[in-house]
């Protein structure tokens, strides 16, 4: 049962055989992993292909998820243009990253993609200008804590999250694709320089397809955003499936990973998408990947992909989650810095959350 969502994403025909309880479980697993929109599209697609009668009790949930997605995508389209407009006087064309890039670039990974915020990439030497222009356009940082502000600015690859004063939309402004203190150093400048302008939306850029995959993989294995791990892996699966229809794409992707220093995250992403979603890969790639052995790390991640909903948890899942969380930090910061950072975080009192109504 724990594998249900993964099974269905991998083989949508299985939807036909679900009973009431399995349907409920499936929707809950999708909600817990932010894959609700994607599942809803998949369900509808199966129904459209006459391979499935959507049960009456499931239909409202599919409808709700699809409406939410449609509205979110419209919002992302809108905000991307607002961001571009704000940066226009600086002569900077923002590069959209991840979800928003898929949506504006009409990538297959846009299907049913849900959002909490938008990520953009800008040149590092223009960061101060970008921040003030966005501030003038209404996006401000809500992080008051000075240490947190410093943490982002000095060590990370992004500004503290900005939120629009009126519309409440969030932006993460990146100036690099990996943290400054990270063990993996992506050649962000090169990836930024090779970004492509969207043909239908001049002024807005996205990374070239191979770089989108490399960044998505890097993000998945560096950030400790475990609830989204399966969604990110599903994004990668869709991107890989789509682009690999083009002859030689995987080869180019592997070469590009060499060039920009992201071989490790790519290899891991290829191994994991192939294992979890059965993403088709060329034999030569599979042979090469077969020689890499990281059984412990793989086991931790395979657990993370399925344990975000309690139905997929095993007794050791919390430990595995913790190990991955620590590892994420370890990857992002050198040890002495990490010790100082975690000590500070541990000693600090959490501010009281506002009373919920």
């Amino acid at each position, binding site marked *: 049962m724990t594998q249900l969502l993964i099974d269905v994403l991998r083989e949508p025909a299985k939807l036909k055989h679900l*009973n*009431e*309880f399995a*349907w*409920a479980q499936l929707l*809950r697993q999708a*909600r*817990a992993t932010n894959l609700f929109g994607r599942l809803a599209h998949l369900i509808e697609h199966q129904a459209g292909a006459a391979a499935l009668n959507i*049960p009456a*009790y*499931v239909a*409202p*949930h599919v*409808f*709700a*998820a699809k*409406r*939410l997605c*449609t*509205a*979110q995508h*419209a*919002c992302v389209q809108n905000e991307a243009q607002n961001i571009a407009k704000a940066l226009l006087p600086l002569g900077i064309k923002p590069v959209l990253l991840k979800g928003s890039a898929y949506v504006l670039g009409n990538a297959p990974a846009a299907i049913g993609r849900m959002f909490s915020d938008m990520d953009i990439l800008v040149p590092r030497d223009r960061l101060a200008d970008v921040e003030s222009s966005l501030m003038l356009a209404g996006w401000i940082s809500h992080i008051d804590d000075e240490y947190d502000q410093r943490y982002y600015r000095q060590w990370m690859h992004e500004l503290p999250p900005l939120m629009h004063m009126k*519309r*409440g939309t969030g932006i993460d402004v990146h100036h690099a694709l990996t943290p400054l203190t990270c063990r993996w150093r992506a050649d962000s400048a090169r990836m930024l320089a090779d970004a492509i302008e969207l043909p239908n939306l001049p002024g807005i850029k996205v990374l070239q397809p191979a770089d989108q995959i490399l960044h998505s993989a890097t993000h998945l294995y560096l950030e400790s955003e475990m609830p989204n791990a399966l969604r990110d892996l599903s994004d990668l699966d869709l991107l890989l499936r789509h682009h690999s229809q083009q002859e030689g794409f995987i080869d180019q992707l592997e070469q590009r990973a060499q060039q920009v220093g992201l071989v490790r995250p790519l290899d891991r992403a290829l191994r994991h998408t192939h294992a979890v979603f059965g993403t088709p890969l060329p034999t030569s790639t599979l042979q090469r990947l077969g020689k890499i052995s990281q059984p412990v790390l793989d086991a931790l991640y395979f657990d993370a992909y399925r344990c975000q*909903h*309690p139905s997929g948890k095993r007794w050791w899942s919390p430990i595995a989650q913790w190990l991955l969380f620590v590892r994420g930090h370890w990857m992002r910061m050198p040890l002495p810095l990490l010790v100082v950072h975690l000590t500070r975080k541990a000693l600090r009192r959490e501010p009281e*959350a506002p*009373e*919920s*109504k």
Partner: protein
Amino acid sequence: MKLSDLSDGDIRQALHRGLTLRIEPFSVYLQTDIHQIIPELKRNYGTRDIQLSEGFADFKVSLKRPRTFRRWLQPQVEFYQDFFSPFKPLPFNQAYPMFEWGLNWCVASQSHQYVLLHAAVLAKGDHAVILPAPPGSGKSTLCAALSTRGWRLFSDELTLIDPTTGEVVPLPRPVNLKNNSIDVMRRYAPDASFGPRFNDTHKGDVCYMRPTEQAIDDALVRAKPAWVILPKYKPDADLTLTPMGRPQALAALAENAFNYEQLGADSFDTLAQVVDGCACYSLEYSRLDEAIQAFADLSLARLESAV
């Protein structure tokens, strides 16, 4: 099978394993060992259909006692949807209100198949009146009073609008009365069914008034919005019913929508359609009887104009 078909002991056992309660238009799977909620659950939802095996449920919720040392000194209760707890724990004796509030949260945060308004809604025949208003405007009291004077209760707090048809969908759950309005309503409708008073909650004292049998029986019968009325209780004021422009009414609905931003253009279109089909007013009142009369007049005028 109905909830009231079971003895308290059976309900206790069923809740321990988890039971599915049909609260139209939703199904709620509730699991809890807190048997103290059973009398209120039975009083408010006794005539609802239940299912004892776990099938499909829109919301899977549970009430638990946090496993902290505090439980020996000051017992508490926590609400979960699936594995997520959206609220801080409350004192143990507020377990039942927490179930109601938790359910509100589930509906308001996830049921995007509807445009969701923080508004009371009732109907006379096929015509619904929507009462959007911030807390403290006397909306619940007015809604409770109308529901005992020939108006069918849809909800005192959650207006569900089906965007495909523009109809409002009933969710007849108990009316949440607060503070002074508890005694006001007990006097105003002595025959209605009131539960115990829960003191000192974060909303003050609360008490649940059960919807009429008719409102529950007609839970699947939808209605078309006919009026949008912004009520405001003002002590000692004479009743005034002032026509309101449609743009203003639209703004009032949008301001009180839970998912206006989430649904973007869809919610604007739906609410614009609602306002187009409605007569819109703002209402200031201090005496319930007068207010009820004003509603009756509106309903009558509508019937006459239709003839």
